[in-house]
């Protein structure tokens, strides 16, 4: 347990300190959100209607962009070999690293989402549900990205490949994430069913994804 916590603290610190990994993800998110109205035109009604979708798509892309870092640096400098040989099961290591990605990158992305929502004219009333849905859904984003990151360890063009592998897996998160927000925009549907499904998706991926990631890491280290 202590070892896992130490690893978590180390990963979060590393993500914040070296090379502005988090800053790049946040900047990318901002760029995506800024460029969309430029492509669609400044119609505030239209923007308000599609804001949840754009905010979610931007979040997924920003999460994907930073996902390569979950395992790559440790793979390259050999830390992953040490961790694999260490006392912690590799699936726990993988899970902790994904959790660190969520804490260091996922949460900041969720926190700036309300600011970006202002740019897109999302109705104020739906901002809390947006935040709630994103908090519930982003663990799945980080853990699924972890699968892609572990499968593409050490490959050329791994970033693009990672996106191709993981984006189909994001379909449920995107759909339920957006439908948790849209009721406040379009109609009187309840927030709770999609929100609970999002929680279920996150919990399931927190349990299952580390197993897949561990298998993939072991395969890459072999």
């Amino acid at each position, binding site marked *: 347990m202590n070892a896992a916590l130490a690893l978590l603290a180390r990963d979060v610190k590393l993500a914040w300190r070296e090379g502005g990994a988090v800053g790049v993800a946040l900047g990318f998110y901002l760029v995506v959100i800024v460029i969309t109205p430029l492509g669609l035109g400044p119609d505030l009604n239209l923007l308000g209607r599609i804001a949840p979708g754009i905010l979610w798509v931007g979040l997924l892309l920003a999460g994907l962009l930073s996902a390569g870092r979950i395992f790559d640096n440790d793979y390259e400098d050999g830390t992953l070999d040490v961790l694999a040989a260490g006392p912690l099961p590799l699936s726990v290591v993988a899970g902790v690293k994904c959790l660190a990605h969520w804490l260091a990158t996922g949460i900041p992305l969720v926190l700036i989402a309300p600011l970006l929502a202002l740019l897109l004219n999302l109705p104020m009333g739906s901002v809390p549900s947006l935040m709630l849905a994103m908090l519930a859904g982003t663990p799945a984003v980080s853990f699924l990205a972890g699968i892609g990151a572990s499968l593409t360890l050490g490959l050329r*063009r791994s970033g693009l490949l990672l996106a191709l592998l993981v984006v189909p897996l994001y379909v*449920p998160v995107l*759909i339920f994430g957006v439908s948790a927000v849209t009721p406040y925009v379009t109609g009187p549907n309840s927030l709770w069913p999609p929100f609970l499904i999002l929680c279920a998706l996150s919990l399931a991926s927190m349990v299952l994804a580390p197993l897949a990631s561990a298998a993939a890491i072991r395969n*890459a280290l072999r």
Partner: protein
Amino acid sequence: MISLANPTRFLGLVDKVLPWLSALVVILLGTGLYLSFFVAPPDYQQGETVRIMFIHVPAAWLAMFGYTVIAIAALGTLIWRHPLADVAAKTAAPIGATFTFVALVTGSLWGKPMWGTYWVWDARLTSMLVLFLLYLGLIALWQSIDELGRAGRAAAILALVGAINIPIIKFSVDWWNTLHQPASVFRTGGPTIDPALLTPLFVMAAGFTALFVLLHLMAMRAEILRRRVRALQQTQVERAALAEA
């Protein structure tokens, strides 16, 4: 299964089976085409376009069948380390992807006269599109990893992750579709199909399945030979290295 683990014996079996299987494919597809063009009556609602169904539905079935084959072979790779499992999975992917593509194109060609547009974000078409993306990801992963063993295991892991996700994706796409589209335009659930249309459909489905098996066996044979060539080239290189040393 154990005797089939030997690729040489597998190749012998394939050579024996292929002529019969080819004949079966020709007969089934010939009968199916005849039935679907000359025997099946036009549908009272959809008219002659219902004939597209006879290739669209089998192609969609093979799209899912192909992924099932890959998922089972992935288990074979990861659990039993069956030497042919990776060959089976790797060669099934392009075939499955092709039939997924065929299902998408024929669905869209069916949709134009029926819905008035080539593409609608219909739940089934959308799920099929996501399945196509999963196939592309698998193929890309196989091509990106140089070492065959690692590529096979990585693709197997991804295939299993995808297999777990497919029902969830299907469920979410259905949810999304009912949320955004009134169901009136689309046929929800299975429409009642006239028995006169059912027989050609089954014959075509059987023919397509046999075609898939045929193509898969042929591709597996070629892949086994390719791996032999590689192994031989490898020994050649090593021998040269030894000779220089």
